[in-house]
């Protein structure tokens, strides 16, 4: 197609690094690991750059691969027997500061830590719903999961998060 969009790698990094890093961070709960995942995702994008046809295609590709690589990283960590979410209780997690990252607010910090205790499939659906503002249909596409499953994960995850927030974040959250 003549005059077709030409992907500019550096520009794509500028535009989407925050999204990719945030997805990885919220899925893994590990700042360093999230950085590594974000780097790997963009290097993978570099290899596939010729196949990227539009800016929207780049966005969808990055979102899908970021979620997939985060899930892979969590799986590898489980295989090695390092499941931080089991080891770390929320109370313990709350007492530890994050290392070097830029914090948005104390509430955001605590919500992230609460989210980290939600089972992975539900967490993935919640992150895409509330961070990326996706509809369940879009989440189903991003995760390659059936729509009914995504809806179920969203409902259960939200319910679980409400319950946890009612206990741990009652001074912040009104609707929990």
């Amino acid at each position, binding site marked *: 197609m003549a005059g077709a969009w030409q992907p500019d*790698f550096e520009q794509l990094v500028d535009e989407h690094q*925050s999204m990719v*890093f945030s997805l990885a961070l919220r899925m893994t709960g590990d700042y360093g690991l999230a950085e590594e995942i*974000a780097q790997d995702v963009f*290097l993978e994008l570099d290899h596939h750059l010729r196949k990227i046809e539009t800016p929207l295609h780049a966005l969808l590709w990055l979102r899908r691969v970021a979620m997939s690589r985060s899930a892979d990283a969590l799986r590898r960590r489980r295989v090695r027997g390092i499941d931080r979410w089991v080891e770390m209780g929320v109370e313990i997690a709350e007492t530890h500061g994050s290392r*070097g990252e830029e914090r948005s607010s104390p509430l955001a910090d605590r*919500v992230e830590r609460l989210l980290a205790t939600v089972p992975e499939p539900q967490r993935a659906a919640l992150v895409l719903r509330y961070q990326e503002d996706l509809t369940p249909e879009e989440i189903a596409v991003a995760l390659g999961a059936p729509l009914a499953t995504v809806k179920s994960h969203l409902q259960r995850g939200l319910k679980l998060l409400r319950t946890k927030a009612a206990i741990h974040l009652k001074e912040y959250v009104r609707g929990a």
Partner: protein
Amino acid sequence: MDDLEPMDDFERELQAALARRPAPQHLKRKIMERRWQHAGRSHRMIWLERLAASLILAAVAGGAAFWRHQEEQRRGEEARQQVFTALRIANHALEQMNAQLAEHNRDAQ
């Protein structure tokens, strides 16, 4: 869950809390560094692949030339043997003819 259902307070707070976080400042630099390193490696790999392909091609061409040379030698040797056989047959025929002539001469005398 209805897709268009308005968010309640908790969901709105959750959405606000889960706004995208800025990427680490050095993330882009690290990505670009790794990209260049990888590009350099890829470049080296391309040259190594070309070298390997050239070596394989040279080996195949050399093998083909050697095979052709051997084949030509074999055919030459075969032709030489055929010529020798023909000469032996002709020699044998001439010897027979000589013997017959000699016998004929003796009879005539």
